[in-house]
């Protein structure tokens, strides 16, 4: 009995240990930095905990911690709040676009003959074989004024050579980049939700007088909602903090919090303010995560 309980405890301890080491400890370090002050030093903030200096030094260090950086980030005078808002907005629009693009693809895959479904899944994951960065760079080649898209449209006579479409360095390019990059994360959960669905339910709906389009909204859509929520969160959360895509494809006026954080960290060399930005970003994102967990818990009840 005791050995069995011990074994169980061990099995449970492993994931918790991982969470502790890989998530909680780094978070606490970032949180501590966010409460510190900038300093011209190595590392560039103070106080620094020195365990060798003894108990008094540590309590003294603790007394130096404060929330000044948060007040700075949350002040209307600085552009952080705007950047948060704009990030949420861009991520939200992108998520809706992803859903609109991803749902029909996932639906088509789930209704495809069973024999070709693994191939289709493979194709969805295929872009991951190439580095993310290279794929985003490739979009520059497509979207730039002299890029492939404009060349094609000019060749087809749709636009004049003098007025190429100005897509690169706009929010549109950021939307295209996010939708392209995150599409697999939207398709996969949707596919798994749709594939699980019993097709006789649609036959039953038709049998009871429901035409196909109405049956989609009354049966397929509500039953795919867990996949919709999972896909949306998988895309929305990283998209809010996205840095590479707005940096490479967006214009100088594209404000996203990831870019701001990067500027604070590497240009202004303010570890403390960038840590505060990161912690606040986490708080902002906890809201949808908690919401999702509620939905999931309800879903589990429904099983």
């Amino acid at each position, binding site marked *: 009995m005791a050995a069995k309980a011990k074994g169980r405890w061990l099995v449970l301890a492993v994931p918790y240990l991982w969470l502790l080491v890989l998530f909680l400890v780094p978070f606490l370090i970032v949180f501590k930095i966010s409460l510190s002050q900038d300093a011209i030093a190595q590392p560039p903030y103070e106080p620094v905990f020195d365990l060798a200096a003894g108990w008094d030094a540590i309590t003294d260090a603790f007394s130096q911690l404060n929330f000044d950086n948060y007040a700075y980030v949350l002040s209307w005078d600085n552009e952080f709040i705007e950047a948060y808002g704009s990030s949420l907005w861009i991520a939200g629009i992108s998520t809706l676009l992803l859903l609109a693009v991803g749902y029909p693809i996932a639906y088509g895959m789930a209704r495809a003959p069973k024999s070709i479904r693994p191939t289709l899944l493979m194709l969805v994951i295929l872009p991951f074989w190439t580095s993310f960065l290279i794929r985003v760079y490739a979009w520059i080649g497509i979207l730039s004024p002299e890029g492939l898209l404009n060349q094609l449209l000019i060749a087809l006579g749709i636009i004049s050579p003098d007025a190429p479409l100005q897509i690169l360095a706009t929010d549109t390019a950021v939307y295209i980049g996010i939708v392209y990059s995150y599409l697999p994360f939207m398709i996969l959960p949707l596919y798994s939700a749709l594939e699980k669905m019993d097709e006789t339910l649609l036959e039953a709906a038709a049998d*009871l*007088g429901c035409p196909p389009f109405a049956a989609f909204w009354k049966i397929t859509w509500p*039953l795919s909602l867990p996949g919709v929520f999972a896909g949306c969160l998988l895309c929305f959360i990283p998209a809010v903090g996205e840095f590479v895509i707005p940096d490479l494809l967006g214009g100088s006026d594209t404000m996203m919090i990831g870019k701001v954080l990067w500027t604070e960290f590497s240009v202004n060399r303010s570890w403390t303010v960038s840590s505060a930005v990161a912690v606040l970003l986490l708080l902002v994102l906890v809201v949808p995560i908690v919401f999702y967990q509620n939905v999931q818990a309800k879903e589990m009840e429904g099983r």
Partner: protein
Amino acid sequence: MSTGVTEKTQTTIGGIRRKFAPWTDPAAVPLIRYENVSKRFGEFTAVDNLSLDIYEREFFALLGPSGCGKTTLMRMLAGFEDPTEGRITLAGQDIVGMPPYKRQTNMMFQSYALFPHMSVWDNIAFGLKQDRMGKGDITARVEEMLKLVKLEKFAKRKPHQLSGGQRQRVALARSLAKRPKVLLLDEPLGALDKKLREETQFELMDIQMQLGMTFLIVTHDQEEAMTVADRIAVMDHGKLIQVAPPAVIYEQPNSRYVADFVGDVNIIEAKVETVAPGNVSLYTGIGGGAKLSIAQNVEAKPGDTAFVAIRPEKVRIDVDPPAWQEANCLRGEVWDIGYLGDLSIYHVELEGGVRIKAAKPNLTRMVERPITWEDKVWVSWLPDSGVVLTR
């Protein structure tokens, strides 16, 4: 073992007294007509040039092994499949090509196909809402249906909060709610345990009588078909082998296939000796040419090979030779005994190696039976107990 005579049909063999038998009335107009219907899936022929009439208020069973085309036949009526050839009419209207949501048929699915995200109430109301029925009417109808299937207390539950039997009732209520011209039941009781299944069979019959609707049931369970149906169609390889009331299917099968598929049967190969009106004499290779005599009109000539089918419950088993007849008496040895409680099934090995099953009701509470393993016994039956089959 069901005797196959249901209360409702009151069919006497040869058929004089029948309460309900529109198929014997040449003037009756069938509700459903399959006319030379074929359905092919690629190379595979699921339904093969089949014609069938089903009448209003009939409880009709399609019986056959899996893959015999019975489900396809039903799905063509629901509109989930269209025939490759032929015509299907429902109440005089050609329904080939009509989408399922426009047909006045409703189906109870084998898997029940209840909408998991809707309550029992919403499941039952689903079809009514499609018809844009008034709110009050929907409420009244749903409540009526809940009462019919005795689930009034479960209206707010979701399907996953119900037992298998309760789900089955919801599925039934949902498919009945729209008062379809025909209710299609696809193996409706397959997922229930034996006791519940038997109860539900009688409930189904009650409901069918109460609502006066036409039911078409697909099943591979011959007892179920015998219990509920007015007529049974036995199918094999996309063709109808025999369409008749249960008692006729059981007592007068038209082929070895039907005799063997429905119930337990002994089949003895024999040669026709003489054919007379109402009687046929045959001889077998058993025990040096034992004679068989069957009271039946058969289209055969002396020397033809024929098969005598005899149900185990119609075979007598005795220790002493029965004095009362010459034919249909065979000598053998008890090879095995199956004790079923109500019956004992004696497997008797006849001279020549043929085995015959005889069922004997256990009328007394004796544990020791007078006939036991390796006893020499006589098996015998009356001339009108067996049936001669030529195919």
